[in-house]
């Protein structure tokens, strides 16, 4: 059932956990935090049965550093957490990016800033995409919008992490984590990645290997950072992914990520029924971001409305991609109740009425 094409009704958090097992995740390290705790609970029951590693870490800081240690040996490993606790992991993510280690981190977002609360939000776009750690580095960020995508993108996260030796964040949210939907696990569709050229397995029959980010040689460090960014150009070329609906004849393109995608799709239909030519655009990889495609659409004169549960974090990337070629408005509520289809429709109408001179912020 959990590895067949049969449909099952399953909660997002459990779906991610089981998909990690299917993807060959050998070790899980985690610390409880709502709304993602079911991932750790599920794996605490399953991993010992499979003879795989499981540690109730003493903190999120410890958890992510356990992942760093585990993946350095070439096995697949992950941790999961939520917003404020992901903030604690940023140092290790910076290290892992520089060390080129395939860390997989699931962030089931909740509201911030600070402790915030457990209601849903999308306030970790910046924290995920721009990196909360020190220095110049890039993380691959995948944003699912359905429970099925939680499964599919978990498979993809493990694959991309090893393929490019780069940390990957699966950026879900409380809504997805807690929601039950029919989904099917199938088999992990990605090929195995050969890690034998770099993994630490003991220096048997080869020279010893050291994985570190210390850069005492200034010239080498400069080159190292250029190399990291060149690698990410390749990732952007190969892996940038997005979905778009009815953009061909659209005057305005509703843009959202993660589970907000669900409501812009519905809003698009209502707007179309009202005679407004609306389309939808939804980045799947928030990093690398689909700048190129948004820029192409903007060049065709299509305006945008970014709909998100934060103060306009993805908005600035869309604006950057549009680069003045068309107009863009923001429709948002920072935290709490998901923007409804009605609210989105009303806001789109207002924005169009005022020629994009305003943003619509709901309380």
């Amino acid at each position, binding site marked *: 059932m959990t590895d067949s094409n049969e449909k099952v009704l399953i909660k997002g958090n459990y779906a991610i956990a089981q998909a990690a097992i299917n993807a060959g995740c*050998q*070790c899980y*390290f985690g610390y409880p935090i709502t709304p993602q705790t079911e991932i750790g609970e599920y794996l605490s029951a399953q991993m010992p049965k499979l003879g795989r*590693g499981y*540690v109730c*870490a*003493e*903190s999120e*800081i*410890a*958890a992510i*550093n*356990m*992942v*760093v*240690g*585990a*993946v*350095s*040996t070439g*096995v697949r*490993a992950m941790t999961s957490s939520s917003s404020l606790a992901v903030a604690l992991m940023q*140092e*290790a993510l910076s*290290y892992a990016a520089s*060390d080129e280690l395939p860390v997989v981190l699931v962030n089931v977002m909740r509201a911030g800033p600070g402790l915030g609360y457990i209601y849903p939000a999308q306030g970790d776009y910046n924290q995920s995409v721009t990196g909360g750690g020190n220095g110049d580095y890039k993380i691959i960020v995948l944003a699912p919008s359905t429970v099925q995508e939680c499964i599919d993108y978990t498979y993809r996260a493990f694959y991309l992490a090893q393929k490019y030796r780069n940390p990957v964040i699966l950026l879900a949210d409380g809504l997805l984590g807690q929601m039950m939907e029919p989904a099917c696990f199938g088999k992990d569709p990605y090929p195995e990645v050969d890690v034998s050229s770099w993994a*630490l*397995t*003991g*220096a*048997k*029959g080869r020279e*010893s*290997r*050291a*994985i*570190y*980010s*210390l850069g005492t040689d200034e010239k080498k460090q400069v080159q190292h950072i250029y190399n990291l960014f060149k690698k990410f150009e390749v990732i952007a070329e190969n892996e940038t992914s997005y979905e778009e609906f009815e953009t061909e004849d659209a005057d305005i393109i509703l843009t959202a990520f993660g589970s907000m995608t669900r409501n812009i799709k519905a809003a698009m239909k209502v707007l179309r029924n009202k005679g407004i030519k609306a389309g939808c655009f939804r980045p799947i990889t928030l990093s690398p971001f689909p700048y190129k495609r948004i820029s192409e659409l903007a060049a065709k004169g299509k305006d945008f409305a970014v709909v998100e549960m934060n103060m306009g974090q993805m908005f600035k990337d869309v604006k950057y991609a549009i680069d003045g070629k068309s107009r863009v408005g923001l429709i948002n509520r920072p935290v709490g109740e998901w923007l409804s289809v009605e609210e989105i429709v009303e806001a789109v109408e207002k924005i169009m009425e005022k020629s994009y001179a305003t943003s619509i912020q709901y309380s």
Partner: protein
Amino acid sequence: MQQVFSIPKSMKKGFRYTFCPGCDHGVAIRLVAELLDELNLQDKAICSTSIGCSVFLYDFLDVDCVEAPHGRACASATGVKRARPDKFVFTYQGDGDFASIGLAESMHTALRGECVSAVCINNTTYGMTGGQLGPTTIMGQVTTTSPYGRNKEYYGYPIRIAEQIALCDGTAYSARVALDTIPHINQAKQALKKAFEVQLQGLGFGFVEILSSCPTNWHMTPQEAHIRVKEEMMPVFPLGVYKDVTTEKGE
């Protein structure tokens, strides 16, 4: 002719020596390397390295190494061991790394009884940054951040690491040793061997705290520094074995 001295196989050849003259790190690393050779561990060893003067460890040890952020060596070592239980996994850390910023990771690794070995250099100061007050700075000690000496009002008290680690149920071996004399160096090697062996036997966490000199930051000659280890440090940090499950009776 009999060769009486050689560089251990587990040490890299032609490395750049980064420690100050008279520092005990060199002796401690050599002991670790000798044991890796003697216990035949070089090709199955994975070291989780640390931040501080010990940061250059992978320049010296010819084994696989993964760098952990400051204080996280035991967490990273836990990850390595859980991923590869058949490997020999160890950390080499300073007192600031192990017992200040990383105390939670260190103690919980001991409490979980992770089968890893940890070596902690105690020189009563933060060496790499130029001699600041650390978790092991002794009462009255002058450092660059305790210019009037450590007092309880501003700084509180130092931690006795080996005793604390011995209190953890998952600890198989915990000892404190020094490197100020040849007999003490020999004892240190025996303690390190024990801390390595308990891992190999699957008994739990193996730990050795090594009292070490820091002539540069103590503003002393190497000889004076070793006298300080004996006269000022040992009364506060007594040498000894604080836990050894292989000799405990009735367990």
